[in-house]
């Protein structure tokens, strides 16, 4: 630690800190453009100039290492003049288009010009103009506004791992861009908008929509993947206008995947805003009462084991527990949350969660990825793996070739499950890398669990983890990477059919007479038997609603208070940002209301009561955050590790941009899909 005096305040900061960090520790605000906590230091904007005693001239504090006894002054005439001068330089070529700029109101340049700049410009010459660049359907560019801080360049090459942005030419001709016109091939490109301190990179879908002060901000959780990204929903009136990430170093740092950020225009398209009942082969608008009566009539005389329920991928825990209670009351054991047919072992929680934790990735020193594509399963977790890889000494092995470059160095060990056996018996070279590591990590993806031999793969991965010392008292290196936001919560609630009950596949083709779909669209609705009475409770007119006999309009994740459990098993609460459209209701309320109609009234009337019921169903829901369980204690998942099949590992996710009903309804995601997921068609044009 070193003692540094900043404006008379003495602070102690770790050795190797920069002057800027010392100033922040002392509570002094230092203006900056190019410096960003999570990126490398560039030192090219010069806005963070401070005076250091015995230094002959102002120094750029962002890149200036502190020394013990250093005296820094941030509020002297020299510093004020330096900042004014730097600001004048930055504004020489910056257009005065704040009134039509989307960054207006949340622009670092605007704020800092106001706080630290001069009151007029001495520059009468023409400003330079720069041609706008095409960076894809998500990021809009107005390059004339660029102040060349190179944050975007560093983000792309360091965090996103797609070194496609650069600064070409020099001096006044310097331009930020890709040189060859192309869309940025990153699932994290939306973060460029957040890190750009000016209006050069703004959101294309959000262009000219709103000013930041018009928006009501609500803290929420992203339900488009299983990362549990902390988000803030920005809404105006009934409409969600944009979603920004919230900082949570445990989960998403300050990044967010594009699907969660940009699929929001799907929230107001293809919505189910009133109940519908099918009569004579056609769906007709109905009242809630009619819809409930129609369901009750269809259920009349149907024994419990002929009723089934499938839970979708974006459900909140509240609605899932209500559905579970309803099914129990109706005497049905058939409830399944695994639309993709994945197999889990629910006997212990750490058999199906990401036990190292997302932040724990940074502690790991070797990684094996089995049947997962982290880049698409969870771009944010992939960025964390890349961050660890950049720190060095991090061998990564992959079983099952990923669909695209994972943005870090890795070795494809093969695509057969037999590779696992080779790693367990140590015959493969990569086994030594795992064995030699202090904290080895194994990530098992849905591609490994949606197979016939999934139980064997799971058991093999566990025994490999055990064999390489990944299951010690202070380190749990066995991880399951999920894709669905609702999955871990559903598994915590035990929404998997017990022995003798019907799974998703068993409910198809007439396996049940009445089928309740809670936001389930992705299991292949065409497989449902023609005589099955289907209730679709959800928010979008997607595959499930098209097949339904009764449609009960529900709420999306931004329209209801909900509890979500991410792939780590972290319990997080989302608040309601806007109201559901039309007659749509929060999902647990719908189930509660229906239960009364069929005479099995669920014993809760308000949200606290549902949450109390959740905690009663599984104590993990009683605690926000990440409840920890013991490490490996010799108990292994049921499953014969030697019964590995010979089918190569495949991908468990189709098109990244179109995985759920919201993103399928979103024009932005459709365009992304056209741009990024169908390159062959593009090339043929």
């Amino acid at each position, binding site marked *: 630690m070193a003692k540094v005096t900043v404006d008379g305040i003495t602070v102690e900061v770790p050795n190797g800190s920069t002057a800027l960090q010392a100033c922040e520790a002392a509570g002094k605000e230092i203006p900056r453009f190019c410096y960003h906590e999570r990126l490398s230091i560039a030192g090219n904007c010069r806005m963070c100039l401070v005076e250091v005693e015995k230094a002959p001239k102002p120094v750029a504090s962002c890149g200036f290492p502190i020394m013990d006894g250093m005296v820094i002054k941030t509020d002297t005439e020299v510093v004020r003049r330096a900042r004014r001068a730097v600001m004048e330089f930055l504004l020489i070529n910056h257009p005065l288009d704040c009134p039509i700029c989307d960054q207006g109101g949340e622009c670092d340049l605007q704020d800092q010009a106001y706080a630290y700049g001069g009151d007029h410009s001495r520059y009468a010459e023409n400003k330079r103009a720069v041609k706008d660049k*095409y960076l*894809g*359907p998500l990021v809009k560019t107005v390059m004339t506004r660029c102040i060349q801080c190179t944050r975007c360049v560093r983000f792309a*090459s360091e965090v996103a*791992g797609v*070194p*496609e*942005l*650069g*600064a*070409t*030419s*020099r001096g006044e001709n310097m331009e930020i861009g*890709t*040189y*060859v*016109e*192309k*869309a940025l*091939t990153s699932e994290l490109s939306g973060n460029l908008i957040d890190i750009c301190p000016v209006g050069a990179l703004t959101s294309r879908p959000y262009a000219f929509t709103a000013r930041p002060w018009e928006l009501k901000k609500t803290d929420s959780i992203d339900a488009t993947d299983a990362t549990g990204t902390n988000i803030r929903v920005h809404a105006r009136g009934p409409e969600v206008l944009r979603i920004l990430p919230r900082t949570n170093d445990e989960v998403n740092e300050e990044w967010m995947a594009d699907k969660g950020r940009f699929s929001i225009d799907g929230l107001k398209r293809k919505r189910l805003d009133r109940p519908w009942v099918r009569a004579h082969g056609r769906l007709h608008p109905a009242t809630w009462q009619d819809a409930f009566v129609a369901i009750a009539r269809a259920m009349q005389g149907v024994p419990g084991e002929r009723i089934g329920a499938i839970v979708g991928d974006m459900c909140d825990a509240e609605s899932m527990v209500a559905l579970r209670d309803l099914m129990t009351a109706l005497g049905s054991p058939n409830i399944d949350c695994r639309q993709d047919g994945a197999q889990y072992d629910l006997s212990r929680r750490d058999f199906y969660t990401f036990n190292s934790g997302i932040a724990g990735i940074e502690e790991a020193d070797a990684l094996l990825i089995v049947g997962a594509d982290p880049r698409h399963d969870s771009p944010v977790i992939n960025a964390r793996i890349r961050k660890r*890889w950049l720190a060095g000494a991090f061998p990564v092995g992959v079983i099952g070739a990923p669909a695209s*470059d*994972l*943005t*870090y*160095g*890795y070795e494809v060990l093969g695509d057969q499950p037999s590779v696992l056996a080779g790693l367990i018996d140590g015959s493969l070279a990569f086994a030594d890398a795992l064995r030699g590591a202090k904290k080895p990590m194994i990530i098992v993806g849905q591609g490994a669990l949606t197979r016939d031999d999934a139980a064997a793969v799971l058991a093999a991965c566990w025994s490999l983890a055990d064999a390489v010392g990944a299951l010690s008292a202070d380190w749990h290196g066995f991880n399951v990477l999920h894709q669905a936001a609702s999955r871990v919560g559903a598994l915590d609630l035990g929404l998997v059919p017990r022995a003798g009950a019907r799974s998703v596949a068993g409910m198809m083709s007439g396996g049940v007479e009445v089928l309740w779909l809670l936001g389930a669209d992705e299991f292949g609705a065409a497989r449902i038997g023609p005589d099955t009475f289907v209730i679709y409770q959800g928010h979008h007119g997607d595959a499930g609603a098209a097949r339904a006999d009764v449609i009960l309009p529900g709420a999306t994740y931004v329209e209801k208070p909900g509890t979500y459990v991410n792939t780590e098993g972290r319990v997080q609460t989302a608040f309601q940002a806007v109201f559901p459209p039309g007659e749509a209701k929060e999902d647990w309320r719908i189930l509660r209301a229906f239960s009364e109609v069929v005479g099995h009234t669920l014993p809760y009337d308000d949200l606290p009561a549902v949450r109390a019921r959740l905690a009663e169903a599984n104590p993990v829901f009683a605690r926000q955050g990440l409840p920890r369980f013991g490490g490996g204690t010799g108990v292994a998942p049921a499953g014969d590790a030697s019964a590995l099949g010979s089918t190569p590992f495949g991908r468990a996710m189709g098109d990244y941009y179109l995985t759920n009903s919201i993103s399928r309804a979103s024009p932005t995601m459709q365009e992304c899909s056209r*741009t*990024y997921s169908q*390159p062959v068609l*593009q*090339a043929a*044009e």
Partner: protein
Amino acid sequence: MSGQFPAENIGHGQPGHAPRPGEPAQPSAFAFDGESESLITGILAKYPEGKQASAVIPLLYVVQKQLGRETGSAWVPRVAMDVVAARLGMPPIRVYEVATFYLMFNTKPVGRYHLQVCTTTPCWLRGSDEVTRACREATGIRHWGETSEDGLFTMTEVECLGACANAPILQVNDDYYEDLDAGRTVELIQALRRGEPPAPGPTIDRFGSMPQGGRTTLLDVPDGEGPPPAHPATVEA
């Protein structure tokens, strides 16, 4: 770095390959020839394993030279930058950045003789305006950066070439022609047009940066009489 960086644009998004109006047509392929390959072997050997990206500038020069040999126009097309990137295992954009930063790399085709006129202060004081005018008149080029109609000459205004003692200077491809005036510039260009490039160096009566008309100092060699000046250390002893 991670995996393989694709040498070609992976074709996402809007078509970006068609040259904008005024942009030169880019060749569709580039490969190093034998001469270049032997140069590259020598260049890469200078850098330790894993630091090959350091060779980006020399390799871009190799490209430019090869294009000069092959087409008579020494420039670096984009596809060649991609080839360099693939060879050195670096992202293409990092090569684009270097190639566009240094003005010595021509990212557009140039004439067979690239006339680089120094107009920085010493050359300007010594008459670079005259050289510029002579170049324009002799080649028919009107503006900086243009190529003459016969495709032989391109005129570029460059900053100090570091040969101020011999100002004004005109660099033709890699050779310096020094101490020019209007008349000798025209003669030079006519010789180039005939395909008879004269020997580079001063165009007046001097060798290197020596005074005009011969040496004025250090005319005689000490005859060796008398003791050589003693080294202070030896005197002490």
